[in-house]
């Protein structure tokens, strides 16, 4: 018997009891949530809001210097006079788009391939996932060597197979440096969506797959009409995590190029850090962080709203 919210279930023949309004689940949970909410508020929400507040001030970060309220000045400078901001903004957007396209798609394909019965399946899953647990700064050091223009594996390999003309200064050429760093990030990141998709694939009902096959569906039609819809909740999680992780990419870039050459691999998270902690312009750093926050919300909220709408159907 289903329980209707607000009604108390009664035994047959029992004296009818007065209907009582059931306490809201949120209010019931609130006492348990309060400690976590307080900690979350103090360590996450407050610094975030304070960073937004700071973006309206000019401050060097020294206690001895009073922050000076400058209104929108930091934003005006950012949008009109900062030669790096728009480059970093563009790079962040490129990074998000590429991350949604490449590691996510590769993760899905690998999950589909490694969801089949095959020899060495567990080993391959592990090998692909292992880079995801490496510290990014370690990955950066490793790939910096791989890309070394004279001693690195990539150029030496190209030389060895007669493609010497294709050798590059992978991290030194502003036209390709961002994509070189991104390639390293794909190597590191592809295991994570793969594992999530593998978990999602376990929820695909085999009966539906079998029924579709009995109805004459080919492999693509099964994937398109059965597997993909079943993976929808997983895809929502993967997309949101990918967007958030892409927007806050930092350590891999710091370790491989430091944002160079000539700020060509600069991204918003690193530029915010550079403004605050290298240039000692906490107001400008806060303004970049606020733009990053708004960009994240602009990308994540509409997608979440759209995906939740789909769930309600």
């Amino acid at each position, binding site marked *: 018997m289903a329980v209707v919210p607000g009604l108390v279930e009664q035994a047959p023949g029992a004296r009818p009891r007065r209907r009582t309004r059931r306490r809201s689940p949120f209010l019931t949970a609130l006492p348990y949530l309060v400690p976590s909410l307080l900690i979350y508020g103090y360590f996450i929400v407050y610094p975030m809001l304070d960073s937004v507040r700071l973006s309206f001030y000019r401050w060097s970060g020294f206690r001895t210097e009073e922050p000076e309220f400058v209104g929108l000045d930091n934003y005006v400078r950012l949008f009109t006079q900062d*030669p790096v901001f728009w480059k970093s903004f563009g790079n962040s957007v490129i990074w998000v788009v590429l991350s949604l396209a490449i590691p996510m798609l590769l993760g899905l394909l690998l999950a589909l391939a490694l969801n089949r019965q095959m020899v060495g399946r567990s080993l391959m899953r592990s090998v692909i996932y292992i880079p995801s647990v490496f510290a990014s700064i370690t990955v950066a050091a490793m790939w910096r060597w791989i890309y070394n223009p004279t001693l690195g594996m990539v150029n030496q390999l190209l030389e060895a197979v007669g493609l010497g003309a294709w050798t590059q200064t992978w991290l*030194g050429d502003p036209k390709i440096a961002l994509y070189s760093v991104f390639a390293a990030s794909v190597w590191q990141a592809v295991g994570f969506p793969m594992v999530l998709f593998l978990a999602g694939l376990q929820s695909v009902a085999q009966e539906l797959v079998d029924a579709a096959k009995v109805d004459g569906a080919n492999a693509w039609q099964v994937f398109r009409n059965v597997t993909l819809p079943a993976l929808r909740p997983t895809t929502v999680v993967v997309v949101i995590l990918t967007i958030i992780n892409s927007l806050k990419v930092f350590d891999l870039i710091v370790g491989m190029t430091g944002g160079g050459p000539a700020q060509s691999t600069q991204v918003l998270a690193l530029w915010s850090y550079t403004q605050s902690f290298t*240039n000692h312009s906490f107001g400008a750093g806060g303004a970049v962080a606020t733009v990053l926050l708004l960009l994240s919300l602009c990308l994540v909220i509409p997608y979440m709203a759209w995906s939740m709408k789909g769930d309600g159907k």
Partner: protein
Amino acid sequence: MLNRRSMVTGAAIGSLALVLVGCSGGDSSEESGGDTEVTVWTLTQEPTQKAAWDALVEGFEEANPGITVVTEERATDPHKDALRQVAGTDAGPDLYRYWGGSGLGGELVDVGMSQDLTEYYEEYGWDEVLTPAALQNATQYGGYHGVPFIQATEAVYYNTALFEQAGITTLPTTYDELVEVAQTLKAAGITPMEFGGTVNWHVMRLLDSLIETMCGADTADELTTGDGDWGAEPCVAEAFTELKTWGDEYLNEGFMAISNDDAAQLFYTGKAAMTIEGDWFGPMAIDGGLAAEDMSLFAFPTGTGRAYGFGELLYLTPNAKNPDAAAKFLDYMVSEEGQGKLGTAFSALSVNASVAPPADAPLGEEWTGVISEATGLFVNNDQNFSTAETTEFWRVQNSVLTGDIDPAEAGEVFQQWRDANQ
């Protein structure tokens, strides 16, 4: 159960009592016989540097019974962060090691993190003790801020064997001759000069030297430490044009993509003939495998006669708990005895004018020659500029090298940023 609870409660009360006793029992200095503590925050030191520093501290404490020097080390960025966090509080040290220059040391002086030491300079007569170049670092902000700890000098290191192999018999005394040397080396199949481009300050040494060369001392000072207009001086375009030429023709292949440590390997292993490095570099090159007899140096032939270098100082904080004891330590540090303890662990040349480099110091004689012939000093621009300015300067420098900014427009681009942000 009750007993156990009682035991736990008793232990907690006992611990609390011990803590309270500890807190109220006076400071540790009183317990150790009335010692006065001088706290010094410094950068993480290499083993040889740590040994030299410890010898300095030990020598001072022996000479000054009752004063203890407590040293705290941090890596560069945490050191900067720690100083920012304690600015304006009592939590800071008595002394801290920091760079000079209006951009780095000057920033801390501006926010009140340094105490004017005029009184101590007069009391101890440090003006008479320090070399003019070292003293310049303390007087550059007005008054006296900090006491010089290191006066580093930079010059062109070269591999004598590679020069000989290329048939170069005389050292360049003009910039044109330096270019000829580079051309000769290149023609002999030798990489003329090495730099690592991922750390911007490594390549910046070449650009700084080119600005000094093309603009002359007065204009260079106007540009770097004064109100000079980078967009209006034709010499700036010449300097950036030369920088681009060096990047395209004479620097190691792919230099923009490698660190200075990786680039230095080319010098250590005899694959590149020159680099611009400081007086700390000689022992590193020998450790890296370059034979001491294969290495020498000459001043970058800027034509102005000025040496190139930078200083680091020990600054006294305004809230120092024991400023007089700290001043005694500073006096010992710059004394002949103190400098003898430091040796060449931090730099080849002493900040004390009467201390000659030890006879066994690598290239000590060559460095003495560079310094004694210098008519003054020009300073690394990352010390001249504010940190934000330096970030933009490096972007312009690297954009010229990658071809994204025309050398003729580089000065104007930099000046536009300065006008908009200052």
